[in-house]
């Protein structure tokens, strides 16, 4: 009688489809990932009750925005698009401190009824002009 050799069942886990499974998962995560970076204008608020620093009046440029979105720069009406150029000139006049930052400080004051959009447009212009010291005044009640 012939005794046939018993066939051994394969003891391996088939790994040929591993790449396919991994690909599927990869594509799922690729599709679901939303790399939406937060973007915006950075600003650091002043500390409450912080010490008051005295600044020469000549080094401040005052920007006032009224409820209608009209802008005054040092008591002269100005359009939003012009702010950058005028501030650039002012920075040039005042010069830079020993850290290379402009001496000029820009103070922005709005009315309580001013639109947020107008404020951001003005802040944008100020930032584009290269001003690093920005003071946000509280609107009057």
């Amino acid at each position, binding site marked *: 009688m012939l005794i046939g050799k018993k066939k051994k069942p394969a003891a391996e886990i088939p790994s040929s489809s*591993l*790449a396919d499974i991994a690909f599927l998962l*990869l594509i799922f995560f690729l599709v679901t990932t939303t790399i939406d970076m937060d973007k*915006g204008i950075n600003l650091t*608020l*002043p*500390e409450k009750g912080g010490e008051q620093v005295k600044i020469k009046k000549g080094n401040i440029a005052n920007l006032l925005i009224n409820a209608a979105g009209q802008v005054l720069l040092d008591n002269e009406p100005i359009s939003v698009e012009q702010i950058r150029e005028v501030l650039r000139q002012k920075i040039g006049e005042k010069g830079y401190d020993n850290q290379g930052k402009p001496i000029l400080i820009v103070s922005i004051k709005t009315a309580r009824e001013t639109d*947020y959009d107008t404020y951001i*447009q003005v*802040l944008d212009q100020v930032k584009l002009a290269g001003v690093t010291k920005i003071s946000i005044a509280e609107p009057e009640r």
Partner: protein
Amino acid sequence: MKFTKKEKVSSSIPTASLPDIIFMLLIFFMVSTVFKEFRGLPILTPAARSTEKVEAKRNIAYVWADKNNRISIDDKIVPINAVSHVIGEKFAVNRRLIISLKIDKETKMGLVSDIQEQLRDAYALRVNYSTRFK
């Protein structure tokens, strides 16, 4: 004269390490995926040219405000005088917190200023006005 058979150069790309590469990519995407936790309020942020990217997504807390003077933090409508309390709790957990202000462009500055005062009360001084690229 005997002609020797030219040895054939193997023309197959080794695919044995393919799963490893794929797994590496997979793990990268799994780790970097942040599922959106909430949606906030329907707003339209203003556009600005000096828009910068904010690094460190995990340090960001969002404060939403729409033109109807509603304020939302973590998908809950918060009254204005409770903002400092809510943000203060977040700030106590993470000292490097950046507040992203997602404010509608038609919101009045009075509300924006009130929010900023509340943030100053909570010592959360690093803010970011969320804007779009112009």
